[in-house]
C-alpha cells in the first residue's frame, strides 16, 4: 500500500497537503484544476520533489528520501519519455539495465515486451521514425518490463487524438493488470478518468483528497470539482 502520511509541499505561495492511501493494484485518476498541484503530488511520490513535511511510505517502508530510481515506481511523463538518440529496443532495455549491457536472455525479454505492445519489427527504429502513439507504446513497454508496483502517469497521452488515447488507456490497464501494479494518472479530462475506472483523487484548494469511486464522484461532484468540470463560479 502507498501511504502519504501528512505530506505537505510549500513552494512560495503554493501549498499542497495530502494524507491518503492507495491500495496495491488500484487504478486512480488524479483530477483537478490546473495549478492545483496534480503534477506536484506525482513528483512527490516519484521522488523529484521533496515534501516539506510528512512521509511517503510503500508497504510500511519509509521512502521519503529515496532516489527516484530506487523507488518502486515507473514514470510516464507528458513528453520526453524516450531518448531520441537510442532505438526503441535500447529505450526499453534501459528499464532492465541502465548500463544497457544486456544478456541474450534480457534482449529477448525486450523483444517480447515490444511485441506485446504491438511493435514487433520496430525494435531498431529511433523515436523520430515512430508515430506519437508508437512512442507511447515504447514507453509502456518499458513500464511493463520494469514491472514496478506503482505506475505514475503525468498526462501521458495529452498529445494524442481521442481514439488513440482510448486505445492507450486500455493498454495501460492491460499492462497494470499483467504486472499487478497500482496506477496513478494525472489527467484534466474526466472521460479519461471514467475510462481508467476505479477511483479518483481530487486535488483542489491546496489539498489532495483521499481516493473515491470515480463514477460516483463524477456523477455527483462536490462544489469545487463541479465548478472545474462545468465552468462558471468564477
Amino acid at each position, binding site marked *: 500500500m502507498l501511504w502519504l502520511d501528512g505530506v505537505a509541499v510549500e513552494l512560495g505561495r503554493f501549498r499542497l497537503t495530502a494524507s491518503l492511501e492507495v491500495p496495491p493494484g488500484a487504478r486512480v485518476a488524479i483530477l483537478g484544476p490546473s495549478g492545483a498541484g496534480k503534477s506536484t503530488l506525482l513528483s512527490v511520490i516519484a521522488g523529484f520533489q521533496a515534501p516539506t513535511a510528512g512521509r511517503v511510505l510503500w508497504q510500511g517502508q519509509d521512502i521519503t528520501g529515496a*532516489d527516484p*530510481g530506487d523507488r518502486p515506481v515507473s514514470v510516464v511523463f507528458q513528453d520526453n519519455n524516450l531518448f531520441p538518440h537510442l532505438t526503441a529496443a535500447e529505450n526499453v532495455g534501459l528499464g532492465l539495465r*541502465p548500463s544497457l549491457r544486456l544478456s541474450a536472455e534480457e534482449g529477448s525479454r525486450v523483444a517480447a515486451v515490444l511485441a506485446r505492445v504491438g511493435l514487433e519489427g520496430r525494435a531498431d527504429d529511433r523515436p523520430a521514425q515512430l508515430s506519437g502513439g508508437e512512442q507511447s507504446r515504447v514507453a509502456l513497454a518499458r513500464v511493463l518490463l520494469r514491472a514496478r508496483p506503482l505506475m505514475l502517469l503525468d498526462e501521458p497521452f495529452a498529445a494524442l487524438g481521442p481514439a488513440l488515447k482510448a486505445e492507450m488507456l486500455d493498454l495501460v490497464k492491460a499492462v497494470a493488470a499483467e504486472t499487478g501494479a497500482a496506477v496513478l494518472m494525472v489527467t484534466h479530462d474526466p472521460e479519461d478518468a471514467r475510462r481508467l475506472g476505479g477511483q479518483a483523487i481530487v486535488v483542489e484548494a491546496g489539498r489532495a483528497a483521499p481516493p473515491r469511486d470515480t463514477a460516483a464522484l463524477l456523477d455527483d461532484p462536490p462544489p469545487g470539482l463541479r465548478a472545474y468540470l462545468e465552468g462558471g463560479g468564477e
Partner: protein
Amino acid sequence: MADRADPVIRTAGAVSAALVALLTLGALAAVAGRAEGLPRLGPADWAAIRFTLIQAVLSAGFSVALAIPVARALARRRFVGRELLVTLLGAPFILPVIVAVFGLLAVFGRNGLISQALVWAGLEPVHIYGLHGVVLAHVFFNLPLATRFLLQGWLAIPAERFRLAAALGFTPADVARSLEWPMLRAVAPGAFLTVLLICTTSFAVALTLGGGPRGTTVELAIYQAFRFDFDLAKAALLALIQVAICAAAAALAWRVAIPAGFGGGLDRVTERWGLTGTGLRLQDGAAILLAALFLLTPMAMIVAEGLPGLTGASPDIWAAALRSFAVALGSAALAVTLALSMALAVAAGPRLWAAPVGALAQLSIALSPLVIGTGLFILLFPVADPMTLALPVTAVVNAVMSLPFAYRALAPAVADTGLVYGRLSDSLGLSGWARLRIVVLPRVARPLGFAAGLSAALSMGDLGVIMLFAAPDAPTLPMQMYRLMAAYRMDEAAAAALILLAASLALFWVFDQAGRRHAVA
C-alpha cells in the same frame, strides 16, 4: 532529489575546478608574490604599456570600422560562394598566428607581392615592421570576427522592418538611419571591446612584426625579461600589469552585451528592396571583393610558397610537427574533460556552486598565456626543471586558454540535456558513468566535437608559453617555424607553414566532423 548531484559528477567537477583554480588563481598568486614595486619599471616598460594600448585600440577600431561595409554587403547580397566566404570568416580563429604572419609577409613584406609591384613601378617597397605591421596582422585576424558579430546584428533585424521600410519608400540612407544605425550602436561596442581584449594579449604578432623595442607589447616584455634578462621579479611585475590591462578590458567587455561568436544561421539573407542602384552594387561588390582578397591572398601564398618545399622538408620539421601534434591532442583532451566536468557540475550541482564554477571556467579570458606561464614557472622551479616539462606545461596552459571557448560551447547543451532528460534519467536510475555514456555524451556530441577541434587547433598553432620554457632541442612546430624565419631560411619556413596550416585545419575538421556524425536526431 532535484539538487542531489551524482557523486561521480560532483567529484569530477570539484577536481576540475580545483585544477583550474590552481592553474589560474594559483599562478596569479605566485606572480603577485614575486613581483617587485612599480619603481622598477624603466622607460622601455612604460613604452611597452603604451604600445600595447595604442595597438589594441587601433586594431579594434580598424577591425570594426572595416567590418561594417563587409557585413552590410554580406547581409543584403546573394551571390555564389557567399556561404563559403561566411564559413571562411571563421577560419582565422584557428589559424596559427605564425602561419598568418608568414602569409602576410608574402603579400605585404619587403619581398611580398605588393612590394614587388611597387618596385616594378619604380617606387619604394613597403616597410611592414612596426606599429602598422602589428595592426595589419590584428586586423587580418579580427576583421572576420568583427564581421561575424555585425552580420549577426544585421540578420537579427526582423525582415518585416525592411518590408515596412520598402512600403514606406525608404531610401538606403533612410534604412541606414532608422534601422541599421541603431543596431550598430547596440552591437558594435561589444565587437570593439572583444577585439580590444584579444589584442591586449598580443605576443606572437608583436614578436614577429613588432620590429624591435618600439613595437614591444607587455606580453612580449614579459618574455624578454624572462629569457634575456633572467629577471623573474620584473617578469612577474610585468605580468601583473598585463593582468590589470586584461582585467580592465574584460570588465568593460563584460558590461556590454557580447554577441556569441559561433552562432549559426548566418547563411540566410533577409529579403530586401530598393538595392538595385549601380552605385550601391559597386559599393557592396567592392567591399566583399576587397575583404576576400585581403583574407584569401595570404592563405593562398602560404600554399603556393609551401608546396614546392614540402617534399624536401627536413626531419626536424616533421619531428617538431609530431611534438606539436601530441601537445595538441593532450591539450584538447584536457580542455574538453575540464569543460565537460565543470559544465556537468554547474548543471547538476547545488545553485551555490554554479556561479563560481562557471566563472572559473571562463576566467582565463582575462588572463594571458605568458602570465600563466610565468606563474607556473615560479611554482615549478623549486620542485622540477621547468625546461624538461616544456611540452606538458604548454599543453596544460593551452588547455586552460581554450577552456572558456570549450565551456561556452558545451554548457548550454549540457544544461539542456539535464532539463529535458534529467527526470527520465533519474527515474530509470541512470547515474554515474552509465548516464554519461548513454545520455550526456550522445546529446552533446556536436558541441563536444567542436570544442575538441577548437582546442586542438589552437594548441597546435600556439606560439606563446612554449617560448618561455622552450628546450632548444625539442621545439614545437610553430617554434621551429619561427626559428627558421628568424634565420631567413624562408623555403623551409614555407614548408613548415603549410604543414602547420594543414595540421591545424585538419585537427579542427576531424574532431568537428566526428561530433557531427555522432550527433543523432
